[in-house]
């Protein structure tokens, strides 16, 4: 099965590459005038997502104008700089956007029909573009809509090269190019998410309904985002605050058949016409799921319940702006009893069972064991345009993460049991500040200089288990990024220097049981540098090459975690008898990507990368168990080695015929431990996905933008694991699998409201399978067939007459 799958994948991959080569070769380069930065994009109907041919696009500054082609595409050649682009089309409201150009840039517009009474909306918004030579992918619009109701880490798996370490149906930890946890930085509305992100069973504490764009920057982005971002960065960006007068709302409703998931999210945003600078937004989400079903049984205690809200108020003028944002995330996630084992004996018993010992019927109840997590963020951000010097931005944020984990059984002692306290209870408080100065373009250079600081305090509640010690972490960094643009070339270079002061207070007991506090303090200075180039040989092809050097200082958990968690004994490196203290790891990252875009038929992107990490810090099960009163435990220790990550990501689409679109994506990563000369543990298996989509292209009538899509997802068995694997990790890697999915949707006019409705079926054939990256794979199968109904309702509640 695996063999055949791989053979097919190889043939398909080869064909695809040949197709790509022919397309690249076919594009002869032409002589170009000096300012040849490409600004292109597609103008579509917001609801039907169909191209609008003959729409007028004007660059206000240069008064260049053009009309879109039959597919709705437009195209300009411009010099670097900031432009206002205005798009108009009969029957649709006019839109203007500010676009900052420092390389080839694609800006799509989705116009709202006048009939919905959205006329006069001036949608302004300047988004920080991701670092140009760096491969990055954004989920927005219809693609994001298809993930509504899913957790953040689950939704991001739509992007080639992004996988997730999963703990059942509720917890998804994003993994980029085989790296995760401390090495993936998540920016939640511009604030570095800080909490207990070290844990593989700790999902990011973020409500994805807040986002109108999810962007993944693949590969090291440490210069801009801090030395931890060796694996990549996830940007969660809400819609900019409303700048046109009126009051709008958006309602998202999601229901799932398998686990009875129901999600409702509402956003309300307004702008009082009399005070156009003042704008606000309020948003809230409820998400609740019951017991998940595999094809054969219910997964006991697999429900979750989530309640989130956020609010933002902004004041924005042309020359300055200020925005205050607050959000709270709350979740309770049930943990499968079978996975919550007391000892290695229990684990071995659970692993040997074909199905968990305890199963159940359907229920929304969440019993012990469960995680209760709350995350609060308050952010103040602002910018100031200074005529001569450029732009100054600051971000100040305070966030607090509360993580309580309740064991399966209450304490034996009745007094303790009646208090019902969590066995693990952490509070993590983080203050961050960043000041960024973007200087005005000077000759051909644009760039920015920034300082960033973090103060973090982590503690566990009195009486709870330690596992992660008390620590304070003070980090300061300074960075400088410059871009140089000439004709079709863009060069980018950056430098960063970080200083980290980590003070740890760890409770311990001497051999005779006396309690003492062990104090340690570490100071590191870590540099980072990056160099990249982007070349646009034609308006439809972009080549990027980037390299980076990063040093990452070890985190508190890598040094000092200690204790038994879910039947496994975990030990930080510095507590291993005889081990030397951890040294910072050094990552050398190289990536090449080819992006061919805005072609009528064939579009796509290929990224090839290598990440060499010296003194790579990782956790691995040892063959020598640890003896405790509950018997022997598998010991997962943090160690250092040298590792090489090499991989390829592909995503592409081909317009087979007028209404038929074929899409293919896939990713592979190979990770060698070069010191031990073996494969690294817990790396994503090779995967590929294909979809065939049919679009009805009606412009009128009650139903618009109808589509149907058939998808195939294939994941191979992970055969590249460390030597002697089964003896160390209980169970061999699970077999590969192929899943079918089907989705159909349309925009239905209900009065004047354009309702987007879709119905999606995943695991259509209700197959039994397990995934290597799911921590429940030892105990239970994955989710069976699931039907998801999604409804999106945009509302325009009022428009104040101006």
């Amino acid at each position, binding site marked *: 099965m695996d063999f055949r799958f791989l053979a097919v994948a190889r043939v398909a991959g080869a064909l695809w590459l040949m197709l790509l080569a022919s397309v690249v070769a076919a594009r002869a380069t032409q002589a170009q005038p000096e300012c040849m930065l490409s600004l292109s994009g597609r103008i579509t109907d917001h609801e039907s997502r169909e191209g609008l041919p003959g729409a007028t696009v004007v660059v206000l500054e240069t008064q260049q104008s053009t009309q879109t082609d039959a597919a709705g595409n437009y195209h300009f050649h411009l010099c670097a700089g900031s432009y206002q682009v205005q798009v108009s089309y009969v029957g649709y409201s006019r839109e203007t956007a500010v676009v900052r150009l420092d390389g080839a840039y694609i800006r799509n517009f989705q116009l709202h029909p006048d009939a919905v009474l959205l006329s006069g909306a001036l949608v302004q918004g300047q988004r920080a573009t991701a670092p140009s030579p760096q491969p990055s992918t954004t989920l927005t619009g219809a693609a994001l809509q298809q993930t509504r109701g899913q957790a953040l880490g689950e939704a991001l798996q739509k992007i080639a090269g992004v996988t997730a370490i999963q703990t059942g149906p509720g917890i998804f930890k994003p993994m980029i190019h085989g790296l995760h946890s401390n090495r993936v930085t998540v920016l939640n509305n511009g604030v570095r998410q800080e909490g207990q992100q070290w844990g593989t069973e700790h999902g990011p504490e973020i409500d994805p309904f807040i986002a109108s764009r999810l962007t993944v920057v693949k590969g090291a982005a440490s210069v801009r985002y801090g030395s931890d971002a060796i694996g990549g960065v996830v940007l969660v960006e809400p819609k900019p605050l409303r700048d046109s007068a009126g009051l709008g709302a958006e309602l998202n409703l999601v229901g799932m058949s398998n686990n009875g998931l129901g999600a409702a999210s509402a956003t309300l945003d307004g702008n009082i016409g009399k005070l156009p600078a003042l704008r606000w937004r309020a948003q809230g989400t409820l998400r609740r799921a019951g017991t998940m079903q595999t094809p054969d049984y219910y997964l006991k205690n697999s429900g979750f319940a989530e309640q989130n809200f956020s609010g933002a108020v902004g004041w924005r003028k042309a020359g300055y702006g200020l925005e205050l944002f607050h959000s709270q995330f709350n979740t309770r996630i049930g943990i499968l009893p079978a996975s919550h*084992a*007391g*000892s290695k*004996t*229990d684990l071995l*018993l659970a692993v040997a069972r074909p199905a968990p*010992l305890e199963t159940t019927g359907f229920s929304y109840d969440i019993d012990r064991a469960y995680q209760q997590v709350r995350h609060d963020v308050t952010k103040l951000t602002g910018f*100031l345009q*200074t005529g001569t*010097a450029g732009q100054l931005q*600051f971000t*100040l944020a*305070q966030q607090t993460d509360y993580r309580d984990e309740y064991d*399966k*059984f*209450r*304490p*034996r*002692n009745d007094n*303790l049991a009646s208090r019902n306290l969590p*066995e693990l209870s952490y509070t993590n*408080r983080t*203050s961050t*500040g960043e*000041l960024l*100065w973007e200087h005005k373009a000077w000759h051909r250079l644009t760039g920015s200089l920034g300082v960033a*600081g973090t*103060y973090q*305090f982590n*503690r*566990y509640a*009195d*009486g*709870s*288990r*330690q596992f992660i*010690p*008390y620590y*304070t972490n*003070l980090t300061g960094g300074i960075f400088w990024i410059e871009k140089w643009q000439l004709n079709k070339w863009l060069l980018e270079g950056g430098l960063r220097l970080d200083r980290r002061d980590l003070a740890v*207070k*760890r*409770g*311990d*007991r*001497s*051999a005779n*049981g006396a*309690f003492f506090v062990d104090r340690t303090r570490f100071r590191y200075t870590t540099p980072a540098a990056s160099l990249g180039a982007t070349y646009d040989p034609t308006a439809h092809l972009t080549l990027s090459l980037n390299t980076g050097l990063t040093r990452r200082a070890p985190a508190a958990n890598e040094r000092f975690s*200690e*204790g*038994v968690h879910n039947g496994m*004994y975990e030990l930080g490196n510095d507590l291993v008898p005889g081990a030397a203290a951890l040294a910072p790891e050094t990552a050398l990252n190289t990536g090449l990507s080819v992006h061919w875009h805005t072609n009528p038929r064939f579009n796509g992107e290929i990224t090839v990368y290598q990440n060499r990490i010296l003194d790579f810090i990782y956790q691995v099960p040892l063959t020598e168990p*640890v*003896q*405790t*009163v*509950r*018997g022997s*435990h598998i010991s997962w220790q943090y160690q250092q080695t040298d590792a090489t990550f090499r991989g390829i990501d592909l995503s592409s689409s081909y317009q087979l015929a007028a209404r038929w679109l074929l899409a293919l994506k896939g990713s592979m990563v190979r990770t060698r431990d070069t010191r031990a000369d073996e494969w690294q543990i817990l790396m994503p298996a090779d995967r590929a996905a294909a979809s065939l989509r049919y679009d009805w292209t009606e412009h009128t009538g009650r139903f618009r933008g109808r589509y149907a899509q058939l998808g195939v997802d294939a994941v191979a068995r992970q055969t590249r694991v460390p030597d002697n694997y089964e003896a160390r990790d209980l169970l061999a890697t699970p077999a590969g699998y192929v899943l079918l999915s089907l989705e159909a949707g349309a925009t239905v006019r209900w009065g004047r409201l354009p309702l987007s409705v879709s119905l999606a079926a995943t695991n259509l054939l209700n197959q039994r399978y397990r995934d290597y990256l799911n921590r429940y794979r030892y105990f239970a199968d994955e989710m069976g067939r699931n039907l998801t109904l999604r409804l999106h309702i945009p509302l325009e509640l009022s428009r104040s007459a101006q």
Partner: protein
Amino acid sequence: MKNPVFKKSLFALLLVAPLLGACKKDNDEEPTPDDDNEQITTVRYELTPAGGGTPVTVQYRDLDGDGGADPTIGTLTLAAGTTYTGKLVLLDETKNPAVIISDEVKEEADEHMFFFEPSNVNLTITRTDKDAKSLEVGLETRVVAGTANAANTTGTLKVTLRHQPGTKNGTFAPGDTDVEVRFPTAVR
């Protein structure tokens, strides 16, 4: 620098200052012993010969808890052809005075069950106490030592405590392991 931008940046840095001021308070916070957390440091098996005589005791003790220094584990030596009355004592000796965990186990006898597995040693162990539902518990036992071990050989006795709230049915399978210790054991 008379640049107004410079002034603004200083202003922004001043804004950060109160946030950083939080350090002082945090520095005073100290980890405390996990007082309220129940753990088991000591497993003691006391065996009294049925006809009277000196009791035999064997003990597993790990005062610093999981990890750290290795536990000390005693050796159990029983006399051939003797019947003993066995009693298990579980303690948490990190507390002062030590918490007698076995008393708590006894109070919740319907959630707990001990299992005894001798290997390479001729022992017959029978639980003699029962919970409210007439299921055996194992805090109290009768131990019959059979024929002596061959010279210079020692077997093991594995003692397991299963915690089975709501699921106890007299078998091993339900629940979790709270204690699993192996004593080197011989009949001489």
